[in-house]
């Protein structure tokens, strides 16, 4: 008498995985091609009131520090003056930060001289923007020894645009 073997008993079911693997590789290629690696970015707020007559003048507000930045014909920085003092060291932005720290005396936080002080950037029209950003960085703060950002002056504005 023949032995009756039930269907499926001891049989190995193989799936055809080729379409799934194809699909996965397509996905990998899509994501790889659409991947863009960007450096992270940050923002500096600038204070640009619409009109000078806007609201009452804050009596606790200190007069703004004027920062004059002059450029040569190619837009490179040639001179930087803070108030009446010309910053003439080999790294004028480090000197600028030292000057700002000597004024603020690391008095930071709400109600401090750092929060009341304002700086006004007066730049030649053809000055390369990278110098403006370096000046803003120098006056805004510095990275402390514990890698925390210590803020200095937060109120930054531009003078009226120079024609050039």
């Amino acid at each position, binding site marked *: 008498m023949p032995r009756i073997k039930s269907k499926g008993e001891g049989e190995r079911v193989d799936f055809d995985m080729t379409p799934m693997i194809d699909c996965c590789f397509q996905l990998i290629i899509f994501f790889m091609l659409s*991947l863009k690696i960007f450096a992270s970015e*940050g923002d500096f707020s600038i204070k640009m009131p*619409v009109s000078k007559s806007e609201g009452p003048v804050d009596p606790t507000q200190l007069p703004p520090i004027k920062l004059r930045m002059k450029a040569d014909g190619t837009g490179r920085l040639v001179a930087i003056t803070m108030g009446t003092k010309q910053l003439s060291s080999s790294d004028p932005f480090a000197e600028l930060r030292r000057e700002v720290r000597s004024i603020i005396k690391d008095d930071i936080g709400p109600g401090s001289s750092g929060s009341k002080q304002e700086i006004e950037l007066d730049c030649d029209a053809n000055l390369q923007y990278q*110098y*403006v950003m370096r000046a803003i960085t120098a006056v805004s703060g510095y990275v402390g020894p514990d890698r925390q950002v210590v803020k200095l002056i937060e109120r930054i504005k*531009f003078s009226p645009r120079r024609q050039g």
Partner: protein
Amino acid sequence: MFGKPKRTSSAVTFDMTPMIDCTFQLVIFFMLTLNFANDEQNEMIRLPSSELAKPTEPPWEFPITLQVTGKNMVIVGSEQVPISGLRSVLQRERSALERFNRTPSHATVIIRADRYAKTGAVQEIIEIAQSLKFERFVLRAKEKEV
């Protein structure tokens, strides 16, 4: 006595499980690192760097990103206009804000200017935006490792 060697007909199968695991790991990695929101970062713009530039948290409400190239052209979305043509673009943005019952003072104008752009061009852009009652401006920089 000695016949032909017996040939077995068994199929050779590979264990594909590790490869599939690895493939899925790659798919998940690329899915998570892909960020479509970074489309506003135009590769033409070489931002100046700053050690104080840290990502803004939470992100700005109603941001309008103006990208200024080294040749002093302005890129807004996918549109590239000279500075003289910026007013009409910003007026359109202003109308869009008004449709959401918002005024230009609610928007933040993000300026992503190339390091070689002229400062005068950036100032002119701010003046144009101010004339349309935009009040909040931020200058964007690339994070620099200290």
